[in-house]
């Protein structure tokens, strides 16, 4: 079976700025593939190249075995695109947004009328069908954008930061919809800077930073390879963290000193926390948790994923 995406040395330069710097990755049919990275990592640039709306500067790229430089329209007919900005047509109603988008693909009217009903149900927007899109909440707009991307029954759905800016409840509704698509066998490519989103939705992911891929694997695999089983977070007050850290040598496998807390990478969090207290340092607050992709990111780049 032909791979959904094959990228080799994929590069995009804007003048002197190399936004995507020679990345290699592949995506197989039915996979949920994540691109995790901070702002400016080159995620949206990558997504536009995958969506055949931005031409690469160099490297090879095949989408469903076709070269986007030459077969743009056919590739785009295969794709669903959910851009970072919703880009809904605010001069139209909810249902008209879906209907006109289907007409852009040349889909017949009768077919579309049925399909729009199905998509409104999928996006849980049946009650809003004749409302102008300005009147929708952020979460509803996002669901409508996803529904719009599904009009042409895409085999590959590209989602650029699908839940950024949404409240937790709206995010969970959205994740639930995306799970359904995954079950239906749609190949998903999702960019995000939320590690919990990547953990929830992605079978496999790449971590991007400064236009390059710095790690690749399953969420669990990446955590195993780049972090410990558990992490102890202790806070001694921002002026004392550094001073205390100097006395914690030998505890855990590794220390990470952040401005507001110390992270102790550890095989047994409880044991190491007791050890810290036993050395006479009583943290203001402490927390033992499982390692996450955030820790992987911190380890690989020395920076936090989400600016705090």
């Amino acid at each position, binding site marked *: *079976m032909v791979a959904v995406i094959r990228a080799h040395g994929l590069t995009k330069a804007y003048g002197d700025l190399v936004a995507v710097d020679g990345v290699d990755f592949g995506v197989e049919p039915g996979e949920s593939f994540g691109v995790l990275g901070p702002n400016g990592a080159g995620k949206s640039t990558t997504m536009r190249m995958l969506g055949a*709306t931005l031409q690469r500067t160099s490297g090879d790229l095949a989408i469903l075995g076709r070269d986007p430089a030459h077969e*743009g*329209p056919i590739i785009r*007919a295969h794709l*669903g695109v959910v851009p970072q900005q919703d880009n809904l047509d605010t001069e139209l109603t909810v249902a008209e947004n879906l209907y006109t988008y289907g007409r852009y693909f040349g889909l017949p009217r009768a077919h579309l009328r049925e399909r729009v009903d199905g998509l409104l149900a999928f996006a849980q927007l049946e009650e809003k069908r004749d409302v102008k899109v300005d009147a929708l909440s952020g979460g509803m707009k996002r669901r409508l954008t996803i529904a719009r991307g599904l009009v042409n*029954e895409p*085999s590959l759905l590209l989602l650029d930061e699908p839940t950024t800016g949404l409240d937790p409840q709206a995010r969970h509704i959205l994740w639930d919809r995306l799970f359904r698509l995954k079950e239906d066998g749609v190949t998903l490519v999702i960019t995000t800077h939320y590690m919990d989103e990547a953990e929830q939705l992605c079978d496999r992911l790449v971590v991007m930073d400064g236009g390059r891929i710095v790690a690749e694997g399953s969420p669990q695999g990446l955590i195993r390879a780049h972090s410990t089983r558990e992490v102890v977070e202790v806070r001694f007050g921002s002026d004392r963290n550094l001073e205390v850290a100097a006395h914690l040598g030998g505890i855990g496998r590794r220390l990470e000193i952040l401005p507001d807390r110390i992270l102790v990478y550890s095989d047994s969090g409880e044991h190491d926390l007791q050890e810290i207290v036993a050395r006479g340092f009583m943290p203001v607050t402490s927390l033992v948790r499982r390692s996450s992709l955030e820790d992987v990111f911190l380890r690989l780049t020395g920076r936090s994923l989400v600016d705090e």
Partner: protein
Amino acid sequence: MITGALATTAAVAIAERRARRPLSSVYAGRSHAILLRGLLALRTSNALAFMTGFVEPVLFLVAFGYGVGGLVGTVEIGGVEVPYAAYIAPALLAASAMNGAIIDTTFNVFFKMHYLGLYRTMMSTSLGPLDVALGEIGWAMIRGAAYAIGFLVVVTAFGLTTTWWALLLVPAAVLVAFAFASLGMTLTSYMTSFQQLNWLNFFLLPMFLFSGTFYPITTYPQWLQWVIEATPLWQAIALMRGLTFGVLDGGLAGHVAYFAVLATVGLYLTARRLDALFLR
């Protein structure tokens, strides 16, 4: 169900069929889908703004044609004395075709391009840049031609059209509106702020006032007459006047050729610009 995992769907079959035709990378043959979008947006959002364009030329006709016209008396055209209102009616017709097309392809297109992200959205489907250019220019043409034809009905009711040649004003208005829309969309596609659009307006008003709209340009020195004759509005007014009074000469073919070239070049440049902005 909701998706067709790797199946050949209707959208893909349509794109594959099209790919065998020439120009398929820039044109999917679906600019009508963009006209449909314009029509739906008109119904849902823009009906009021659309209607105002019908009123404007009628106000000018009443104020100048009958108000000022009372002082002016008649004007001689091709050896015939015509009332002043009849003299300016074809010019206002040309101006209304221009205004409809230009309003739509400047402020509306700029809004759709930079605030709605509409063209980016359209081009993330299997549409090509020529579909979008042709659809949007076509929509603006419909608007300009609608104003011109609406105005033609009004002036006919006022008894200001005198020959059957005036029926040719309809296709002439369509051509003029298309050419202005092509020009407007080309210019807008290179603009990056609303301020620049206002500059465009700064040129439109003098063009409207001084292109032989209200009096013959023979009142100007020769060099200025040549400059004015190069402007699209003077070309349009000359075409419309010629048809209105049945003064048909070789000049008419020249005007038609002028607009045909403007329309084609504008369409080409717009498509190229959309490609550069949203597919490169």
